[in-house]
């Protein structure tokens, strides 16, 4: 066995104390509980995802990857979903989307899409 020097003993003791400090110090801090739960996907996140999807669909249509009919159908599909969210947000009681409301919502979607494109660019 190699001779154990004083400096080696001191260094080992310091290391052990440092380890103890790391694991013990949190135990003497104020009591806190593990109360933070995973954030549910909020409605604005879903809305952002849907706008991003619409943006991507439009871009892929412009790149000739999807047909005109599919583009129209897909666009409508996601616009209806966004309309539903916007409707919820504006706290309309009715569950059906009437045409005048749809027109209004579509205009709102277009305006949001324009600002979104400026902000994020394609596909995001």
């Amino acid at each position, binding site marked *: 066995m190699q001779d154990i020097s004083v400096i080696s003993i001191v260094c080992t003791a310091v290391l052990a104390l*440092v380890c103890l400090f*790391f*694991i013990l110090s949190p135990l003497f801090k104020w009591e806190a509980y593990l109360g933070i739960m995973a954030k549910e996907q909020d409605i604005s996140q879903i809305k952002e*995802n849907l*706008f991003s999807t619409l943006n991507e669909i439009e871009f892929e249509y412009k790149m*000739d990857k999807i047909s005109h009919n599919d583009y129209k159908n897909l666009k409508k599909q996601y616009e209806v979903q966004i309309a539903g969210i916007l409707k919820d947000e504006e706290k309309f009681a009715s569950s059906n989307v009437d045409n005048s409301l749809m027109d209004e919502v579509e205009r709102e979607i277009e305006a949001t899409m324009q600002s979104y494109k400026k902000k994020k660019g394609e596909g995001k």
Partner: protein
Amino acid sequence: MYLFANATIYLGLAVSIYSLLIITLGISTQKQKLINSGKGGIIAVFTCAGLAMISLFYLLGTSDFHYQYVVDYTSSDLPILYKLTALWAGNAGSLLLWTFFLSLYMVMIMSSRKMKGNPMVPYVTSILLANAVFFFFILGFVAKPFELSNPVPAEGRGLNPMLQNPGMIIHPVTLYLGYVGLSVPFAFAMAALIMKNMDDFWIKMTRRWTIIAWLFLSLGNIFGGQWAYVELGWGGYWAWDPVENASFMPWLTATAFLHSVMIQERKNMLKVWNISLIIISYALTLFGTFLVRSGVLTSVHAFSNSNLGLYFLVFMGIAVIGSLYVLMSRYNLLKRSAGEFNSFVSKESSFLINNLLLVGAAFAVFWGTIFPLVSEAVRGTKVTVGTPFFNTVESPILLCMMFVMSVCPMLAWQKSTVKNLRKNFLIPAILAVIGMVLMVVLGIQKAWAVIGYGVIILLLITHYLEFYRGVKARRKMTGENPFLALYRLMIKNRRRYGGYLVHLGIAFITMGIIGSQNYDLQTMKTIDLGKSIEIKDYRINYDRLDQKKEGPNDVVFADITVFKDGKKLGSFEPKKIFYANSENEPSTEVTIISSLKEDLYVVLSAWENNGKATFLVKVNPMMDWLWIGSFMIVIGALFAIWNGKYQNITPRYTGVRKEVA
């Protein structure tokens, strides 16, 4: 030093056990204090692992032969760089490096800003801590880096000459960073399952981790191939050696995982598949370690035989059974609310096909690697599966993957029509066929090479069109100039365009593989002084044979002058180095004259007292393309993760939803 160095290992073990237990207790009792104590323990574990590394570096650097590891892997005349990098030359040191990376990753996860207040962190860290406990246990009781030598020798055994190469300095480090990196997405996946979080949150949190792990794994394989090419002196770069396969398999499954998580992010599909893939990838990293350290298979890279493999096998068994149990117990939850395919002609379908091909390729490599063990168990004789098996099985799979990679950019998410595909596909396909015809006319007539290069042409054209049409569409929408449009198109879609750069890198590598495997020329000749060897357009004049001392090593070298088409390319010196303190065969220093077209590869194989020398001369076409492709993979992966934020919004396709109880 002895006391301190060993204390870093045993304290590390004790603190990691404590942290694992206290975090588990904290989770079950919901006490933040206990979790915080465990987190403090992780910092202590990192401190211990870091100090253990510094201690071993110090012992190696100062040639302290009181320690067995220093005796086994260094000698006092070794250059300081190789003395230090001998840390990962042996079992104990390399496992210490692994433990250090693991503890580093744990601290990075714990202290990351985006992980603040994230309830997954205690689960993730406890899974990683279980790994740390295993590794510290191995370092403390099985492969001890700070064991004393008895008696103390005056000189060490020196470093294996094959490891005295710059490639070997980086190769193990990158490979371990990749191996350990894969345990991060694995831990997140398990944490998500345990917490019953069935969404894609864990994927978003680990996007960059996965790409970084994949990048390091790629680099590990590339550096390994490069080292084999310049150091082993057989003229190749990949021999389907069990240890090479061990690092290639997780690369294949991790590549599949990188693609299939995009389907889950966008379409809420393939949840079980993704978790299975990350379990397999993680298990394969352990399996690779088992292969390298068990001695069950012979390999040029393997560490000496030890009982370490058994420990890894048991740990891998526990990890796989445990994770499969968690997966099965959450199976019904995972299947609930899963999306489904809307069209066979869509980006997600092409991703799925590519996934199946990648997993199929991984399985073929796995089968070929373990076949000697299976044959020995069943028939009593070890039947080794050679390079022809792997080349025969893997080549068509690689070509199919390249084909799917070519088609994929032309497809939209959710729904593409055959009509659109045909419209986009027709011109590239015609150009690829014209290219193939031209190749045949110009003399490239091997079927695999023609098909392979044809598919690569298709891939290059479709990727070019993807950039071109993207810029065009963006300009239509924004009116930007072409360069600005290209720049913004790429930085707004880093993952997609980074991925395309990686695809181009793979295409370049494939070009190199096809060229070097199908059109290499080789000759081995014994000639007199003053004579020459001719191969293709090259003439190699043999001018002189001599020997010299390089430090403590003896070197035998030949002076040669190389001419191409009569024009002098220069004088070169292929040599053999007889390392002092080494009982192994002399090491080969090859002469490589590289160009984009081909490499001239000259090895001094043998010599006689009368001055006669035997040279192995090879012409390896398109080798540079292999390295350029590798460089592009690195650039593409870095581009994809640069400045990436997990909060980035991903399009989410809903399609038809299914509610299954």
